């Protein structure tokens, strides 16, 4: 090689590395929750390590969904990283809207991601989003009220036990409801809850030919059970209660039991906000007697890179930083082990410090028992537990959950709601070309 050629090669290499090392400003769209806000506060560590700076766009979950969907479908290019969930990831990955995360560094240790999370955030075996935190659902109950009722919570109870315990714990005179559950319309609110409840009664959304299954006895049994139990032991107006409303009731000591996202455990055991912080026990989400599937869901908030970004390298560096083992250590050092993002990495649950957190084991057990590929007893053509990962699901499930909420509010019967759900789902699936 002549000197001139060597010089040219050296210059080219310098330019390439120079460009790679160039400090960028990346824009990240995210949701407003404790873990994400904590990450924003720690971003300086990322900037110190890489030189890249971060601009945050924090939005409410539903606004964020609409905003990032519009951006990605119109190729707006406003965001370099998007916070998306398990519902969107496989759909967007399939459409080629996301950058595959198949070349993460060896130090990142992608095999350490919990298999349920990794599978749920992949399409066709390729990871498209890295889990920032994961969650399932479980029972949170008042140990004092359970004892007062003369009952003992099994680690893996049935719905029949839960109904009996709820009735025993209900004390209307003292404004204590035996059980608080989501009834609010919306596919991610009451829709998610009734779907997992139905799974645990052996029901499914679709058969293998994409025919709606609301005319099957399992759905009727599940819905009638839910309505019956909530009428006996639920709070007044539960048809409009979602996560926040139930959290508020539980923290004020007005619920004997609450079945909801595992992330709620850190809220109800926080003595600053919860009046019952030292009286909370945990158990696996229930199933109906004789049905193998439990009613726990699986969800992850994950970081993904939209295909249109010009800052893929910097975005990948951020994702590696935010979902790494080192980040977990960083949060633990600054804010304590109870505040680290849960449910994403196997190594976290091998850490004795973290396993001392009261809800750590139950969270892991709940996540491990959730299988998005086999959400219910019978075979299904879709992936997802509290949703079916198809683009049409959000719209259909929102309408179906509105019909169910009307039942909870006493505006129509179970049979009427199921008949409407069956018709509207089949119509929508036919229009979308599935049937």
């Amino acid at each position: 090689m002549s000197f001139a050629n060597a010089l040219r090669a050296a210059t080219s290499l310098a330019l390439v590395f120079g460009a790679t090392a160039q400090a960028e400003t990346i824009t990240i769209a995210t949701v407003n929750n404790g873990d994400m806000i904590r990450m924003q506060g720690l971003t300086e560590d990322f900037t110190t390590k890489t030189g890249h700076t971060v601009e945050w766009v924090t939005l409410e979950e539903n606004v964020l969904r609409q905003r990032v969907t519009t951006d990605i479908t119109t190729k707006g290019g406003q965001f370099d990283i998007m916070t998306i969930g398990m519902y969107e990831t496989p759909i967007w990955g399939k459409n080629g809207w996301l950058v595959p995360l198949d070349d993460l560094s060896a130090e990142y240790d992608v095999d350490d991601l919990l298999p349920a999370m990794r599978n749920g955030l992949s399409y066709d075996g390729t990871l498209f989003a890295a889990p920032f935190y994961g969650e399932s659902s479980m029972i949170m109950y008042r140990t004092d009220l359970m004892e007062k009722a003369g009952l003992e919570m099994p680690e893996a109870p049935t719905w029949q036990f839960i109904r009996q315990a709820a009735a025993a714990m209900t004390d209307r005179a003292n404004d204590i409801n035996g059980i608080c559950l989501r009834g609010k319309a919306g596919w991610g609110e009451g829709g998610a809850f009734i779907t997992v409840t139905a799974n645990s009664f052996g029901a499914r959304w679709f058969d293998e030919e994409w025919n709606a299954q609301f005319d099957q006895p399992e759905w009727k049994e599940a819905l009638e059970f839910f309505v019956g139990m909530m009428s006996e032991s639920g709070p007044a107006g539960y048809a409009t209660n979602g996560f926040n409303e139930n959290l508020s009731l539980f923290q004020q000591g007005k619920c004997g039991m609450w079945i909801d996202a595992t992330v709620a455990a850190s809220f109800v055991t926080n003595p600053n906000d919860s009046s019952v912080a030292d009286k909370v026990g945990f158990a696996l989400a229930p199933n109906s007697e004789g049905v193998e599937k439990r009613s726990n869901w699986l969800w992850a908030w994950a970081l993904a890179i939209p295909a249109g970004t010009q800052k893929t390298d910097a975005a990948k560096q951020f994702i590696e930083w935010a979902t790494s083992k080192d980040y977990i250590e960083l949060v633990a050092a600054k804010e304590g082990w109870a505040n680290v993002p849960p449910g994403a990495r196997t190594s976290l649950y091998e850490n004795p410090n973290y396993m001392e957190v009261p809800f750590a084991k139950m969270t892991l057990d709940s996540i491990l028992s959730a299988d998005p590929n086999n959400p219910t007893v019978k075979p299904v053509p879709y992936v997802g537990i509290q949703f079916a990962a198809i683009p049409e699901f959000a719209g259909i499930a929102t309408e179906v959950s509105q019909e169910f909420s009307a039942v909870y509010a006493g505006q129509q019967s179970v049979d009427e709601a199921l008949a409407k759900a069956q018709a509207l789902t089949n119509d929508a699936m036919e229009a979308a070309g599935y049937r």
Partner: protein
Amino acid sequence: MARSTTTRRKIITTAAAWAVGLLIFFPIYWTILTSFKTEAQAINDPPLFFFFDWTLENYAVVQERSDYMRFLWNSVIISGLSTLLGVMIAVPAAWSMAFVPSRRTKDILLWMLSTKMLPAVGVLYPISLLFVKFGLLDTRTGLVVVLMLINLPIIVWMLYTYFKEIPGEILEAARMDGATLREEIVYILTPMAIPGIASTMLLNFILAWNEAFWTLNLTAAKAAPLTAFIASYSSPEGLFFAKLSAASTMAIAPILILGWFSQKQLVRGLTFGAVK
């Protein structure tokens, strides 16, 4: 007898006005009050109306987490310029419809208003694509144009109503004295319609300030106004009502102060036609 009837009527009317006023103000009062509570106090049942340990913690957290001044500045620029641009276009339009009407004027007015009846989300994708095409996403320029267009029918309608109250003979006299069209509008019509124009501008400034669909969907980090600032504190998974209330109070404070100081002008302008 007549005097006692009048007094009683006055008392009833005053009481009814206060009741309606308090009812309308209550959500704002509650938001402000909640912003001084802890998160636990914010969800307390029974609700805490006044006697609780007041705290400024939420304001401190919001200040620390968000660049309030950047959002505020964006709101001021977007609302102010879109209102100004709207009035500059609407004044000649309303003048022509009020003083030189054609057979189609009423139809045009109705058609303009009908554009307000279309749900915004119906044109989200076309507008987004246009913004992508012209590089207007997350720019104040883009939002100024969109908010001006959204509020233009209201501005034209309001100005048209005010202009109709002004006798055409005055303008005719100006024309006879040799005033050009521009002079007629700038020196005769506009000064006479100042209360109407001022209240129209105020109302549209408030509408633009509070607009939350386009400002959320067409911005990201740079041009986001106070509506995006509030949205960043809303969460369906976690109780952050006190912080959300603090953010909301900070977002509405400038417009509340503006409304307070200009209330006389606003009321005068809004009742301009009615009291004539």
